[in-house]
């Protein structure tokens, strides 16, 4: 941290900064509070617009309903597994792809970049991809959740960009002169300096896996392999009967509960991953470059 005295202009700036950020905090925070509060309130009061800051008609029924489905724990377990293994695969593949593309002296980099970026625009669509997955024998296998989507061009481009701008080429050149091969360049020099971007990739890919349901929808049939989001979707639909049969109070309550369940479902599925970011924030630190360059 700077121990150099701050000028008056700086003090003003800092104060305004804190004010702005606090405002942002409040604006963003309020609807989030609403979601939490609504998830434990009486559905009727929420729909009637009575719920602002505190729960009204406190009840945990929506959470009871969500967790009463035994599938939920299976869903959590599966999603955890897919996220961990999937993100690992993503990291390895994306780094291996991004690094060569970031090297100025790599003649074919334009070609490969174009080759990969092209796929962001043109795709055969759901059916041919499904057929390919089927032909590879991946249907209803765990690998169907991990392989399609193993590399995202978007993420790879961002990672490549980071390598290009944050890791001076001179550093790599001097190492090459010292006889360092490309692979060890990547592993011993570039990656350790790229901790922030790796953290970003973990967040992007990790959250992607955590929230995914579409691949599971079309490739999986065994309900024991279902990820959390798919389980939640079916729970939400269970509670939303569009055909109102039978004069039963509980059917009405169920319709109403469906409204509140949306909020409970969000919380159930997001809290674990929300906690990821604060945990990773400590990796957003300045790279240990200064010493390396001087050396």
């Amino acid at each position, binding site marked *: 941290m700077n121990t150099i005295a701050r000028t008056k202009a700086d003090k003003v700036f800092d104060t305004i900064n804190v004010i702005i950020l606090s405002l942002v905090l409040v604006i963003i925070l309020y609807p989030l509070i609403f979601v939490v509060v609504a998830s434990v309130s009486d559905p009727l009061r929420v729909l009637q617009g009575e719920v602002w800051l505190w729960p009204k008609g406190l009840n945990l029924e929506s959470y009871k309903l969500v967790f009463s489905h035994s599938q939920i724990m299976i869903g959590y377990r599966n999603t955890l597994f897919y996220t961990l293994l999937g993100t690992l695969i993503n990291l390895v593949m994306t780094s291996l792809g991004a690094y060569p593309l970031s090297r100025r002296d790599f003649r074919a980099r334009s070609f490969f970049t174009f*080759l990969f970026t092209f796929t962001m625009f043109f795709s055969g669509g759901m059916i041919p991809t499904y057929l390919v997955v089927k032909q590879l024998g991946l249907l209803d296998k765990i690998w169907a959740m991990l392989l399609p989507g193993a590399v995202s061009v978007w993420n790879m481009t961002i990672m490549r960009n980071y390598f290009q701008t944050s890791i001076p080429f001179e550093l790599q050149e001097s190492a090459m002169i010292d006889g360092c091969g490309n692979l060890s360049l990547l592993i011993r020099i570039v990656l350790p300096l790229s901790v922030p971007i790796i953290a970003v990739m973990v967040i992007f890919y990790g959250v992607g896996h955590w929230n995914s349901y579409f691949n599971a929808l079309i490739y999986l049939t065994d309900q024991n392999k279902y990820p959390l989001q798919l389980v939640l979707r079916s729970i939400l639909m269970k509670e939303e009967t569009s055909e109102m049969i039978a004069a039963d109070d509980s*059917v009405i309550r169920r319709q109403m509960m469906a409204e509140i369940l949306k909020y409970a479902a969000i919380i159930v599925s997001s809290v674990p991953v929300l906690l990821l970011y604060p945990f990773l924030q400590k990796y957003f630190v300045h790279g240990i470059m200064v010493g390396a360059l001087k050396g």
Partner: protein
Amino acid sequence: MRSKKLCALLLCLIFVLSLVAGCSSSQTTESGEQKQEKHPESNQTEQKAETAEETPGDEDVPPYLNKEGFPIVKEPITLRFMVRQTAVQPPHEEIYVWQEYEKMTGVKIEWINVPDTDLSEKRNLAIASGDLPDAFIRCLFSDLDVLRYGEQGIFIELNDLIDKYAPNLKACMEKYPEVGRGLPEYNGKIYATPVLYDSEPILMGTRLFIRKTWVDKLGLSMPTTTDELYKVLKAFKEQDPNGNGKPDEIPWTSSIITGIEGVLKGAWGLQNRGSKHSYVDWDEKNNQLRFIYTTDQMKELWQYLNRLYKEGLLDEEIFTMDHPKLIAKGEQDLVGAFCFVNSQAIGASHEQEYEGIPEALEGPHGDKLWALKGPVLSSKGPFQITSACKYPEVAMRWIDYFYSEEGATFFYMGVEGVTYKRNPDGTLEYSIPELENMPEGTSFDQIVGKYTPYMGGGNPQITMTHYFKGGETQPIPLKAAENVAPFAPKEIWAGFSFTIEEAEKLNELQNDIHTYIDNMRAEFITGKTSFDKWDEYVQQIEKMGFKEYMEIYQKGYERYMSN
């Protein structure tokens, strides 16, 4: 620069290669899949069946089939059905009626349960990838899909099968002329078995419910004309019938504007051939088809609604309403009148205070029609036998039972003495023990859903009042239907049949025109656009291909009438 050209060249090469790769592999895959849909069990039984004796006189009856009665098959046969599993149902193999039916028929069903949420993806994927089940049951195929897949051969032609092995369905087609007319496609072929409703309370559609307690409190009587309705709504607004001192009453609301528009259509003589044709009806004076939304009567109807909106008699938020909001407003004791197929939509607290209107509303020109009645042939979507099925006759006999009264009762109520009992007055009632002491958190639907498979509707069978215990036959909506039944049109049209080209073109035109109408209806009623612009509105519709729309519709009509 060189790498750019190389780039492009290699890219083209890869693209072409993938085309070729796709070519060889997909062909073998897809056609291979179609041929290979053999279930290991049925392989065995087919061999067995071939050696079975044939009954003399039934030369074209397949050896494994019994032409009549139960069991349906001589040796156990397994069929794979893809079924839509709705929210309240367990997987279908657990449903009591299906288990009993398996014993009765000798046919084992391997159920592919697809939850509601995933239905269109899974169903479309099954077809496009060649992984066909033996039949699709209640998978909500649209009429266009049924025709398209029928013509492509994915759904087989059922005409012969119905003739030989579906006496109950055949009887329905003869008993209800609109079914016989509406079921075949433009080429006379039938590719699906229908959803049939022979139950007035269900067919009557959306009712108009008015708060009887408020009507009585304010010393009025239930309205029978559009003018009287206006006066009642006005009284609701101005005289504080909910007694809380605030002018917060919402005289008329609903979950969707078309519900409100629908109950008024008859008062202007519109939609005079039933609810299946809500944009085109019959011009009795000139003996031709008439487009409802460009008539002067529709203009007057919207002007009436505009007046209601301006004076606060129609919910301000009507264009962003949905079911939960309707319940919320109902529970808050704010609602004077609403429209739905049953009265539960308003919430349990005040449901009993409402009643259906005593007669169809009479409009300013003396029309007193109930335009919302639907045809017996409700949809063509619920049951199709695919080209992968080795035993289509078995499948046909299997489904035909539910088109008889006995079969349909079994479908809805289960087994007499076990799941239902017959009251002395002839009515049927569930006698499932769990219903007496419902475990916490369960509902009527969930419990009955474990025994009978009808939950969610859209079932391939015939539904009749005396065994249908759904919302439409509860006391209040039942009476509401009886009140308006005498005013329903004499002639109700089922859906028309079109060729694929006609249907696709119609789809395009409807997408443009109907969306425009939705938008303009909202603008006219809210007053955003003044009725001075009515002629412009009509001209706009003409510019959107209206002439072609009506020409295609005419073809459908002629086909329908000549069946």
